[in-house]
């Protein structure tokens, strides 16, 4: 890798010398939302500020979080994967059918991960191998994989899971005193891994370069194909992992499991400051955004706000979160232009 490229990267990615508050700008919307939601919840319901319940309830958001981690990488690459939730359904269906057929649940869970990666590989073949746009390909596999799950399970629900597998979301890592739920710990573990991958490895560097300018990256000797394909495999792996988590939480599998989860995950990624056009984004942002979305949802539901209103609030927040950083950037560049004059 030439010195020029390195120079470019350090300019465009993270290390431009700037005051810390300007580098915190991408996280600002989620942090503000997180704090605002905590205040709203505390004021509007006496039951909101229950640390144990809040911790335990994170279990419900971990599946979204796992998908969001992998989607951060995919989106930084300048791609998108809309098929993750449908992939999750096929992975869960595979696991369900295997458990029903008498296979041990551990093996079935590994099979779910393998199926997840396999379906991710199919996406990668179409997108990277055949050079088709990821939006179109994963829009197609969104429908295809969901249909596959429906063919596999029909209208039947699989409920044959052993008791010790069901309810992992209620398992506390630190015992009963401080209920730190296992899924949360798992999610944070994955977050650290993904963060390491994006910030400390050549793969991560390739992701930012590919997403900033794919052609330039290619001509600079970056293996953009391998980088993008790897991201889709990671997305598949996380879909498989989310399938296992969700199945354990629900104790049952239906073909419509996780319907619409891809949009919630993309919401989290975008709210976390990742540029939907690629080249910019951090795992830390995604993690903060997940907690922000969670705080918003939890504070609304505990205040007896109905589903439609919750969706509308999240929509408004997303628009504001996207508009504010753009406005700040524009304002700053205008100020800079004025200074030049």
């Amino acid at each position: 890798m030439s010195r020029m490229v390195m120079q470019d990267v350090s300019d465009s990615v993270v290390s431009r010398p700037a005051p810390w508050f300007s580098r915190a700008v991408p996280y600002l919307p989620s942090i503000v939302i997180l704090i605002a939601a905590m205040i709203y919840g505390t004021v509007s319901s006496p039951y909101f500020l229950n640390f144990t319940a809040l911790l335990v309830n994170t279990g419900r958001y971990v599946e979204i979080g796992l998908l969001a981690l992998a989607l951060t990488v995919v989106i930084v690459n300048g791609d998108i994967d809309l098929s993750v939730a449908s992939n999750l359904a096929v992975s869960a269906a595979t696991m369900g059918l295997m458990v029903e057929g008498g296979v041990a649940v551990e093996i079935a869970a590994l099979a779910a991960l393998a199926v997840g990666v396999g379906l991710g590989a199919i996406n990668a073949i179409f997108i990277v191998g055949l050079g088709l746009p990821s939006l179109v390909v994963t829009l197609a596999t969104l429908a295809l994989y969901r249909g596959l799950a429906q063919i596999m399970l029909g209208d039947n629900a699989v409920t044959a899971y052993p008791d010790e597998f069901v309810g992992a979301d209620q398992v506390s890592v630190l015992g009963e005193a401080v209920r730190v739920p296992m899924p949360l710990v798992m999610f944070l573990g994955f977050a650290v891994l993904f963060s390491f991958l994006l910030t400390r490895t050549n793969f991560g560097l390739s992701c930012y370069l590919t997403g900033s300018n794919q052609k330039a990256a290619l001509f600079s000797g970056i293996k953009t194909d391998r980088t993008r394909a790897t991201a889709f495999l990671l997305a598949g792996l996380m879909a498989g992992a989310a399938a296992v988590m969700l199945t354990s939480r629900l104790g049952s599998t239906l073909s419509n499991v996780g319907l619409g989860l891809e949009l919630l995950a993309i919401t989290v990624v975008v709210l976390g400051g990742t540029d939907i056009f690629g080249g910019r984004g951090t795992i830390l942002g995604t993690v903060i955004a997940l907690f922000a979305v969670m705080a918003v949802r939890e504070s609304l539901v505990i205040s007896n706000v109905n589903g439609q209103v919750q969706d509308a609030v999240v929509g408004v927040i997303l628009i504001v979160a996207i508009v504010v950083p753009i406005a700040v950037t524009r304002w700053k560049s205008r100020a800079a232009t004025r200074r030049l004059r």
Partner: protein
Amino acid sequence: MRKVRRSMGLVAIAASATMILAACGGNESSSEETAAEAATEEAVVAEETVEEAPAEGGGEALRVTYIPKNLGNPYFDAIVKGFNEAAPGLNMTVEVVAPAQAGATDQIPFIDAAIQQQVDAIAISPNDLDALCPSLKRAMEAGITVLTVNGDTAPDCREASITPVDFSQLGRYLVDLTAEVTGGEGEWAFLSATSTAPDQNSWLEAAAEYISSGESPAGLTLVDTVYGDDQPDKSATEAQALLTKYPDLAAINAPTTVGIAAAAQVLSQSPRKGQVQVTGLGTPNQMREFIKDGTVQKFALWDPALQGTIAANLIVGLQNGSIVAGEDVAFEVPGVGERIMAGADRLIIAGPPQEFDASNIDDFDF
């Protein structure tokens, strides 16, 4: 230098995150204050409720959360109405919350929130047989009374289930309803939903058994069964085809709300209006105009509000210990009558089918 600055930024974020967490965990005094304030507010509300309600003074009001499948559905609004009419007399407050979509897992956050709010009872019209079970079981472990209303989960995830009508008798009832509107004479046909609809098929099967048993009214002849796929257009086309195919047809019985409305629409503009009767299962709001213009004499469904009334009364009984959920336990619902938790599954039938005609249709709004 750059690195140092960057880590300082991270530290700043971590510090603010810690502060947020500390605010959650540490400030228990302030949260207690908030709770106390809210409790005062609640007490004020409760007093008002007591003032309105003459019965059952004293004691804290029972807090009930009802979670319908989704909101903005007149059918579930009617169940809510049943709750709300019963609640003041029972010293009970009912909170109604629901998700935007009727997905299998969409009701889970609302169940978890009700647990966190330490409500006394959860009534739910579940969107899924199994997926809600872990949350509902947690609610029961927390001492919350759990009932399913108009839909069910696995029996071990709730104390009892209220079903609108005895569906095993519905096939027989539909034949008798046809006999009633035709005077017991003539050819008739079923206009059903899809050929694979499990509910409709079980009723059609039961109707066929009733007819072949020889107990059904002898003057009636079931000549055809057609399927409108629960689409208004297809249902109307099938109804029209029945009229053409059977010149002596006396009645079309559509045990589906889409089918009956479509058939009534066809008949209302047909010269054979009045000669051919339309009946079956429909909602009053969809069928009102056809009752008013004389196309339809009588049709049926059930009264969803009754389920809310029974649920509200049952919750009180289960909470004060006067009713203990169990196999074939009978209990009295004031103003409604005795109901039974039938069988090991503790299934409560809310009532007989509710018939609608010109005399009572304006009493219903769903």
